[in-house]
C-alpha cells in the first residue's frame, strides 16, 4: 500500500475547477455592455415583445471581432455559452430536463400540462407519467403547487411571463438534460437565426486575473537552438509536416507505407536509414537498425557490448521474480574473470558492480551499462556510420514513389481495407522462431553437463524389462 501524504489539498472540494467559468462570465459582462456589447433590441415573439433580445448572428459576429477569430470558432464558442446556460434561446427548445427526486420538476411539468392543456412533448410526457407513478403520494401537493404558480404567473405582464418561462425552460435544460447521447449539442443551422438572451448575473469583483500576459520566459539560447535543430532535423519525417512516401495510409487507405516499415523488414526505406544517422538512440530503438548494428559489431568482434547492454535492459525492465538469476547470469557471461563474452569496463565501475552484485537489485548493473552505452556511442557508432555494412544498407534502401490515386481508386482502396496480423499472433511466431534458433544454437558444454546431472537425480526408476 502506498503511504498517505499527511498534507493534502482536496482541490475539488475547496477550489472547484471554475476558473474557466469566471473568464466566461467576464466575456458575458462585456457582451451586455450597452455601448460595446452585442446589439440587442426588443423582439416581437408571436404577440408579445421581449426586451433585450439578441440574434445568434450578432453573437457570432461580436465574438469574432472581440477575439479576432474565425466565424467557425466564434460559433463554437457561442454554442458552448448556450450549453452552459449563460445564453438561452427564446424559441426552439430541443431538450428538457429530467429530475426524479425533488418535486420542483414535477411541479413544473404539471404546470406546463395545465397551460398546454395536456399537450407536452414526448419525453416530457414520458417523464410526467413516470413521476406521477413514483410520486403518487405527493401528487396532490404537486398539482396544487402547480396551479398556484400558474395563477401567480397569469398576473404578471405578458413579456415578463414569456421571458420567465424561457428562463425556466433553459434552467431545466441545463441542469437536467434528457437521457441522450449528445447532451450539449446546438443546432448550428438555426443558431444564427434564432433569438437569444443573456442571463443576468453579477460578476465577482477583485478576483485574481486569470489572463496571463503572453510572455515567452527567458531560457538558455543553447536550449532554443537545440529545439529548433531537432524540429528541423525531423520535420522531413513528420507525416503532418511533409508527405509520407508512398502515401499516408489514413489518407489513401493504402497500407504500403506500413508494410515497407515493418519492424523486421529485410530492406528498409531510405527515410528510415536516414533516421539512424540522427542519433545513436534512434539506431538502437529501431529493431532493424539494431540488427544492422549487431551485424557490424559481429564483423568487428565486439558484439558482446551490445549483448551486454541488451541483457541489462532485460534485467531492468523484467519481472521481479527472475531478477536475481538474470543478474547472476549476466555476471557469469560478461563480467566475471575468464567469462566467455568478457566486456571491457574500467576498474572503478567493475568494483562498484561487483559490490552491488552481493545484494542484486534491478539497477545493480546500471553503472556498467552506462559505461558500455557511452563506449558504443562514442566509438562503435561513428565507425558504423562509415562502415561498408551501413553503406551497403543505405545503397539497397528503397525509395518508394509517391502514390497518385484518383478518386475512383481511392474509393476502391476504402472498400478493400484489410485487417492486419494481430500482435498476439506475431508474438507467437517470434517465440516459435526463437525456440527454433535456440535448438540450433551451438551447445554450451557446461550447461549441458549441469542439466544432465540435474536430470539424473530426477529420472524415475526404470521399469522392469518385460
Amino acid at each position, binding site marked *: 500500500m502506498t503511504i498517505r501524504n499527511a498534507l493534502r489539498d482536496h482541490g475539488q472540494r475547496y477550489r472547484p475547477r471554475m476558473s474557466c467559468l469566471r473568464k466566461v462570465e467576464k466575456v458575458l459582462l462585456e457582451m451586455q455592455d450597452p455601448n460595446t456589447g452585442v446589439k440587442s433590441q426588443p423582439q416581437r415573439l408571436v404577440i408579445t415583445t421581449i426586451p433585450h433580445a439578441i440574434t445568434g448572428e450578432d453573437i457570432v459576429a461580436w465574438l469574432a471581432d472581440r477575439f479576432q477569430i474565425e466565424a467557425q470558432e466564434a460559433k463554437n464558442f457561442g454554442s458552448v455559452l448556450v450549453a452552459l446556460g449563460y445564453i438561452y434561446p427564446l424559441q426552439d427548445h430541443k431538450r428538457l430536463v429530467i429530475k426524479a427526486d425533488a418535486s420542483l420538476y414535477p411541479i413544473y411539468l404539471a404546470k406546463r400540462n395545465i397551460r398546454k392543456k395536456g399537450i407536452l412533448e414526448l419525453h416530457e410526457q414520458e417523464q410526467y407519467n413516470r413521476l406521477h407513478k413514483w410520486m403518487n403520494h405527493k401528487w396532490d401537493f404537486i398539482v396544487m403547487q402547480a396551479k398556484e404558480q400558474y395563477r401567480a404567473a397569469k398576473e404578471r405582464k405578458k413579456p415578463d411571463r414569456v421571458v420567465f418561462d424561457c428562463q425556466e425552460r433553459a434552467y431545466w435544460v441545463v441542469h437536467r438534460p434528457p437521457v441522450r447521447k449528445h447532451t450539449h449539442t446546438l443546432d448550428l443551422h438555426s443558431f444564427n437565426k434564432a433569438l437569444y438572451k443573456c442571463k443576468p448575473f453579477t460578476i465577482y469583483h477583485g478576483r485574481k486575473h486569470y489572463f496571463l500576459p503572453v510572455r515567452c520566459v527567458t531560457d538558455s539560447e543553447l536550449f532554443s537552438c537545440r529545439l*529548433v535543430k*531537432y524540429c528541423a532535423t525531423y520535420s522531413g519525417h513528420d*507525416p503532418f509536416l511533409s508527405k509520407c512516401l508512398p502515401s499516408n495510409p489514413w489518407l489513401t487507405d493504402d497500407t504500403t507505407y506500413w508494410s515497407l516499415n515493418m519492424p523486421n523488414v529485410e530492406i528498409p526505406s531510405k527515410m528510415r536509414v536516414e533516421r539512424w544517422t540522427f542519433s*545513436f538512440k534512434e539506431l538502437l530503438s529501431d529493431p532493424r537498425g539494431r540488427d544492422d548494428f549487431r551485424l557490424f559489431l559481429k564483423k568487428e568482434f565486439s558484439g558482446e557490448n551490445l549483448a551486454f547492454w541488451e541483457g541489462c535492459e532485460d534485467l531492468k525492465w523484467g*519481472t521481479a521474480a527472475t531478477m536475481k538469476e538474470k543478474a547472476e547470469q549476466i555476471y557469469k557471461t560478461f563480467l566475471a574473470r575468464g567469462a566467455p563474452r568478457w566486456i571491457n569496463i574500467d576498474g572503478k565501475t567493475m568494483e562498484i558492480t561487483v559490490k*552491488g552484485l552481493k545484494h542484486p537489485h534491478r539497477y545493480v548493473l546500471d553503472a556498467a551499462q552506462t559505461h558500455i552505452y557511452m563506449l558504443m556511442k562514442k566509438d562503435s557508432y561513428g565507425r558504423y556510420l562509415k562502415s561498408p555494412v551501413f553503406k551497403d544498407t543505405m545503397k539497397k534502401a528503397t525509395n518508394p514513389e509517391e502514390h497518385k490515386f484518383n478518386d475512383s481508386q481511392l474509393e476502391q482502396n476504402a472498400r478493400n481495407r484489410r485487417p492486419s496480423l494481430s500482435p498476439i499472433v506475431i508474438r507467437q511466431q517470434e517465440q516459435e522462431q526463437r525456440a527454433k534458433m535456440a535448438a540450433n544454437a551451438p551447445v554450451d558444454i557446461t550447461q549441458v553437463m549441469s542439466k544432465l546431472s540435474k536430470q539424473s537425480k530426477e529420472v524415475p526408476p526404470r521399469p522392469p524389462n518385460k
Partner: protein
Amino acid sequence: MCDQTFLAATFGPCDSCGKASPLMNIYVKNEPINYCSFCVEMMACQGLQSGETLTSLKKESENLKKKLEEERGKLTDVELHQVAEKVEAVAALSIKTRRVLKGHGNKVLCVDWCKDKRRVVSSSQDGKIIVWDAFTLNKEHGVTLPCTWVMACAYAPSGCAVACGGLDNKCSVVPLSLDRNENLAAKKKSVAMHTNYVSGCTFTSSDMQLLTSSGDGTCALWDVESGQLLQSFHGHTADVLSLDLAPSETGNTFVSGGCDMKANVWDMRSGQNIQSFDSHVSDINCVKYYPSGDAFASASDDATCRFYDLRADREVAVYQKDSIVFGASSVDFSLSGRLLFAGYNDYTINVWDVLKGNRISILFGHENRVSRVRVSPDGTALCSASWDNTLRIWA
C-alpha cells in the same frame, strides 16, 4: 547520452535504516545525507523539531524558492520565439477526420495506441474497454469491468495485453486473446492498489512493469507478475492527474502533473523528485514529454498549455489565446515536435506551433469535450477521445 539528462544514482546502505537500496541524495542544513526513499518519507512526516515553528519553516521555504528563481534568471536571455523567427512558418495544415470509432455507450475517457500503429485501446465511463483496429474500424476485443469511470488505459509494448484503472482504485492488466468467445475479464489481474482513483497508467519498456498515478497524490511503479510495489513517488500535495515516461533509452525518469498545479520530474530508481515546475494557476490535466526527452508540455484548466525545458529548469513558452477560455484536457506532440495538439473542454483541438508559439489551426468535429489526444507511434495520425462517446482519427 550526454545530450540527455543522466543522473548517477547511488546504491548502497541507507544512512538511517541500513538496508541496501537506491538512495536519494538530499541535503539537510547543507549537509548531504543518503537516505532510502522510505526513510525520507518518514523524515518528512516528523513533527516540528525544537527551534522550528511553522512560520519559520514557511519562511525558509519561501527564501529557497526565491533563491531558485534568481539562479534560474541568471541563465542567458534569449527567448525561444526570437531564435525561432528565422525558422519558416508551418504551411497550412489540412487535417481532417479520417475515421470515427463509434461503439462506446458513454463518455470515452482515455485512449492509447498500440506499437503496430493502427490498433487503439479506449476506455469509457460505462466500464468497457474496447480494442479497435482503427484502420478497418473493427472492434477486436472488448472487456467489461465491474467499475464505471475507467479513467486510464494503456496498451502493452508487445501488443498482447492492456492495462486499465479508474474508480476501483486499482490498475489491472488484461491479457488479450484471439479466442473471441473467451471472457477476457476473467483473466484480469489486479496489479496496482491505490487508496484513491487511478488517473493514469503506462507500461515501461516491457510488459512487466506498470507505472500508475492516482488521486491519492502518489505515483507508483509495480511489477506486473507479482503485483509487488517496486517504488512509490511522494511529493504531490493533491491528486495526480497524469504522467508520462521519458523517451530516452536509459528511460529512468518520468514527469507527473497534478491538482496542486505542479509538474514534477521523478527518478524511477530512487523515487526522488528531481525537478518541480509550478507556473500553472490551475490543475494540470496532462503532461507529455517532447520527443527528444529534454523538455515537456503540460495542459491545464487555466486554458493554457506550457512548455518546460528540463535542462534550463524553467518554463520557456505559454500557449494561450484570449478566445480560449476553457481548460485544456490533453496534449501530445507530433513526431518532429514542431506541432503541439491540445484537446480542450470547448470541444475543439487546437494545433500550436511549438517554436513560434502561435496557433496554426483548430480541429472541429467533436460534440462534447475532448478528454484525450494521442499521436500514433509513427506520427501518421492523431486519435482523440471525447465525451460524445466517439473517438476520431485525424490525419
